[in-house]
């Protein structure tokens, strides 16, 4: 059988390639015209929290330390109003085998691939997830292929991704490095088709269920130490998996009153598929280039139904600046003795600002750290930024302009969060959902309840928004 490899021909085979490589019949979970049984889809994997914990235990994933950042808390209190400044804790996920929480995310996919007899495991990712999949594949004795968006048309590699290339290769994976563009997914499909490998997508139920242990663990650790659940948990937000899995874990632990805050680096103005902007971001994930589109429409992922549905779980969504993350990374190293990568430090910036709104006896938890190293470090990123002609200066971070100026705070009192209006995100989500409604059809009761769950709102809210924007968005 001869196959066509043009962009259009390969994309047309996506459904079939996905079914074979993920092993999930997504259509089985359809309920209404646009709705589907989300909980059923997750439960359909057959993994409950206890089983997931056992799988993760078998490769030393999880059970990471919860660290109280006493000096960071003291610094927040030094710039807070009297009586304010919640205690800041961090879940030191860098202690996982490949150095980030992504090991949790990869563990079930590797387990599933081995159980089902796939010859190997593949993922399209330029970040920590690649290293996690490669590490888990090594433990499971599976072949591994990671497809990265790694360099621009000048051949300049983004330093953080270069470090990920090295890490994946260290774990014995084949790394396919591509230049900039969304066609990475096109090539990934070709690789899946050619190899018959399991697709360890970031967005399958396996991936999200694997993160539930993180939320569950941290809430139990706080309760054991402090006799109660955390008041606020902050997660760095990109594709939505981190927020979704963590929040689900919190709920499963019974931490129903804990507020879930999503935090992203503001990269407004930079285009995610632009060859020119690629090396001007200084951040490869945890930024608004992913979090806004994925919050407003999760089903843009590489699977038919994304299991990461952050809008179901977010209580608040904030952004921070590039300069603030570099600042707090330096502070964390110098006053807490913890040198960690940028991903967790994005939510740490938010926690540092939010702690100042909260009373001193409250508890705020940053739910991840990640390893750091050459390339994956403020020095590597800021040296590249300077080479790309970006100004790096001290000042009020409100003057930070992605792609033009990275403004590093002069004082901790300048660290603040910007609110993302969740109602605006909800409206945008509903508009996107309505566009998938078959022509001439009306939403069923099932669809309306689904939309309310998807947006963590109510039937009345959904009806009001639909009335306002019209039935076709």
């Amino acid at each position, binding site marked *: 059988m001869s196959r066509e490899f043009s*962009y259009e021909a390969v994309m047309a085979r996506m459904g079939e390639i996905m079914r074979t490589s993920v092993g999930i019949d997504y259509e089985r979970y359809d309920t209404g015209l646009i709705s589907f049984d989300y909980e059923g889809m997750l439960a359909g994997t057959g993994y409950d929290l206890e089983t997931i914990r056992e799988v993760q235990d078998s490769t030393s994933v999880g059970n990471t330390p919860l660290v109280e950042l006493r000096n960071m808390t003291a610094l927040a209190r*030094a710039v807070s109003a009297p009586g304010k400044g919640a205690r800041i804790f961090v879940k030191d996920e860098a202690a996982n085998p490949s150095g980030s929480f992504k090991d949790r995310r990869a563990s079930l996919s590797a387990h599933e691939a081995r159980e089902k007899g796939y010859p*190997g495991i593949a993922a399209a990712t330029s970040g920590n997830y690649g290293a996690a999949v490669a590490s888990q594949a090594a433990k499971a004795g599976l072949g591994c292929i990671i497809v990265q968006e790694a360099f621009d048309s000048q051949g300049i590699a983004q330093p953080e991704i*270069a470090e990920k290339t090295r890490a994946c290769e260290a774990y014995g994976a*084949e790394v396919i490095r591509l*230049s900039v563009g969304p066609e990475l997914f096109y090539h990934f499909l070709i690789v899946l088709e050619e190899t018959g490998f399991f697709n360890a997508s970031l967005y399958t139920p396996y991936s999200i269920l694997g993160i539930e242990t993180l939320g569950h663990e941290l809430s139990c650790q706080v309760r054991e130490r402090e006799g109660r659940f955390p008041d606020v948990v902050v997660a760095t937000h990109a594709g939505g998996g981190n927020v979704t899995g963590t929040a689900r874990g919190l709920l499963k632990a019974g931490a129903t009153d804990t507020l879930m805050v999503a935090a992203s680096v503001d990269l407004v103005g930079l285009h995610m*598929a632009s060859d020119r902007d690629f090396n001007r971001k200084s951040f490869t994930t945890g930024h608004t280039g992913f979090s806004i589109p994925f919050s407003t429409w999760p089903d843009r992922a590489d699977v038919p139904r994304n299991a990461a549905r952050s809008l179901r779980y977010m209580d608040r969504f904030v952004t921070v600046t590039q300069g603030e993350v570099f600042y707090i990374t330096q502070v964390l*190293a110098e*006053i807490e003795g913890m040198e960690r990568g940028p991903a967790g430090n994005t939510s740490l910036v938010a926690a540092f600002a939010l702690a100042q709104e909260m009373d001193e006896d409250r508890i705020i938890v940053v739910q991840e750290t990640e390893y750091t190293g050459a390339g994956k470090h403020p020095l590597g990123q800021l040296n590249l930024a300077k080479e790309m002609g970006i100004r790096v200066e001290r000042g009020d971070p409100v003057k930070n302009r992605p792609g033009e100026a990275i403004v590093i705070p002069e004082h901790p009192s300048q660290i603040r969060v910007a609110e993302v209006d969740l109602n605006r995100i909800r409206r945008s989500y509903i508009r996107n959902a309505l566009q998938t409604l078959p022509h001439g059809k009306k939403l069923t009761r099932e669809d309306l309840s689904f939309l309310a769950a998807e947006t963590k709102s109510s039937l009345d809210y959904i009806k009001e928004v639909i009335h306002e924007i019209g039935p076709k968005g």
Partner: protein
Amino acid sequence: MTDKKAKETWVEIHKILLDKGKRAPQVPQDTREVPLEMKVKGFLLHEAALGDKVEIVTVAGRKIKGILSSVNPSYDHLFGPPIPELSTIGREVREILGQGRREES
């Protein structure tokens, strides 16, 4: 005389996956004007010199053809020099913490 590399040498190959006219419809203008390129590492399946069209086998067992672009390619991502804009942050925050501690006592 070309410098031939032996079979089994660890190398990187380069290949154009999509020419600039064949890119996905949704890519922005600047990306549309350049091809989609690929670089992959593996072991040479035969003797070859830089710039030759070669075949390699990757660590995942795939056989791929492309132009031999690098031999035993290095990892060259660096920390680079210290960033002056970060260098004084530690001193500044320790000073704030120091004052805070004195006030508390």
